[in-house]
């Protein structure tokens, strides 16, 4: 999600080549995110299968269950973040296809960094 409080730079027009490249990269990002989400879901299933029939009963079982809850929660939150990431990919692609003039995210876009890897803005 884009933070609405972040200032946006408007009015930048992309060339068709840049748009096509951006769309390709967003497709790739979406594909990889989906594959990752599938693998993560498979891992969650494996973990559930290994522990749901556990007959272990002892004083330390409570501590095990607590830590297992932390682990499953971390995995679930990660899976949730991936789902949002997928939605964001879709939204970006729709935006890219719909408009020639787009709103750029503020704070990280510098005209003098065109041609450099975008990650340079974090340096």
């Amino acid at each position: 999600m884009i933070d609405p409080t972040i200032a946006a730079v408007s009015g930048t027009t992309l060339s068709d080549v840049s748009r096509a490249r951006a769309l390709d990269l967003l497709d790739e990002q979406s594909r990889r995110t989906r594959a990752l989400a599938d693998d993560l879901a498979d891992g969650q299933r494996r973990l559930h299968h290994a522990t749901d029939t556990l007959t272990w009963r002892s004083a330390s079982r409570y501590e095990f269950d607590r830590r297992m809850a932390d682990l499953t929660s971390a995995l679930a939150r990660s899976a949730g973040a991936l789902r949002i990431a997928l939605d964001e990919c879709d939204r970006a692609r729709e935006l890219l296809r719909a408009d020639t003039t787009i709103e750029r995210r503020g704070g990280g876009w510098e005209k003098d960094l065109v041609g450099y890897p975008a990650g340079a803005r974090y340096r």
Partner: protein
Amino acid sequence: MTPTADTLDVSGGASTSVETDELFLVAATLTTLAADARDWAHRAAMTRCITEWSADAAPFGFAEPDLTRSAAMLQDAAALAESLSSRVETAATAYAAVEQKGADVSGLVAALGGFLTGGLIRNIFIGALPLLPSAAVAALVAQHPEVRRLAAVAGQPLLSALTGNAALLESPAFVSLVRALVSSADDIALGVAGIDPPVARLLGDDGAGIVGLSSMAGALLLLAGRNAYTATPITLSTAESTPVTAPRSLADAASRIPESGPGRPQIRVERFEGGARPSYAVYLAGTSEFSTDGAEPFDMGSNLAGIAGDDAAAYRATLDAMDEAGIRPGDSVTLVGHSQGGLVAARVAASGAYDTDALITFGSPTGQIPIPDSVAHLAVEHAEDLTPALGGAPIEGDDGRDRVVVTRSIHDPAVPERPFGSAHFMAGYADTAALIDGSDDPRLDRVKAALDTLGEAERGGTSTLYRAVKRRG
């Protein structure tokens, strides 16, 4: 934990419990998950970089913050899984060590208890020597019918007390105690002989094994009289021969074990055609009578001889029936037996004479018989059944590693009235067999696969019932 009602406890038969195995499995799963989560975190970060590192796509990197968050959570998950895996593995190792130590300690305690009991018997015997003349007179007096009737009346309360406490005698704790004491039979004997405890330990099952459960059973066999240990010729007759299809399940196989009892056939052999060679299933009944001098080969003498590792009459009768049915050394055989029938079946499998695919025993004292690894061995033992405990503690180490034991508690505490020994009845074991058929525990797969092989391609076959009797000269 004792499984109750319809729950099954599957174990390796040695001291390591199922719970420990499960914990090791969970630890392994967590270790794999930790490695996977690290890989996924890396992939999430790289997926974020797809837009981040492109000047064209960077303005549309809306997913980047969530991919960053996902990667961080996956790193956390990896650390949690790794830590938890380490703790679970440590716990499992500790449990296994405690169980092993517990088994060692209980074995030592039982051995010491047995030794002290033996010593006590010896001391009582030596102390009673001066009373021997009086005892001889008492023994002579006891031959008088009136005195015997009096003794019978006086002994009634003891018998009543025993019957009244049948539930206690059939409790899983008592069964465990019997198993430990039977395993310590050697120590009891050495205690009677007045041998020092360290030397007794050295000579017994836990040491050199010179005086062990089998040799003790052999000694009992000798004490049981000439009829028990004298090899008696067997006469075999075919009782019935009918067409049959291969068993489709464990319950189906269990239902084919002949019903035991004097005068009944004891052995069923099924021959299935098809494939390169015929395959066979042999079903053996339990003890027919509890004397040693009757006509039944499946008697108490065969029970003792079976545990002693001798050629019991029941064992020879089984080999004769197998030979009569056309089974030759090296032929493919599946052996199924109840009680003594299981003991005999285990001896046949242990002999290595046949290509035994599976050995399935119900309530049989087979714990100390070393079955080859190539045999899929399933031992079904009810928690309240004393008979399997009479075979002693299961063999540890390599010889016992492939024995799969299914334990089930069949007594409902809410129903105190039940026939004594009902936990040993084949009807209860048939119910347990049906539960095993419904179990998806992978440790049961090998035996189920062996049964499936027997029944593959809807093989038709012939079922023959044999009755063996001892020929007394």
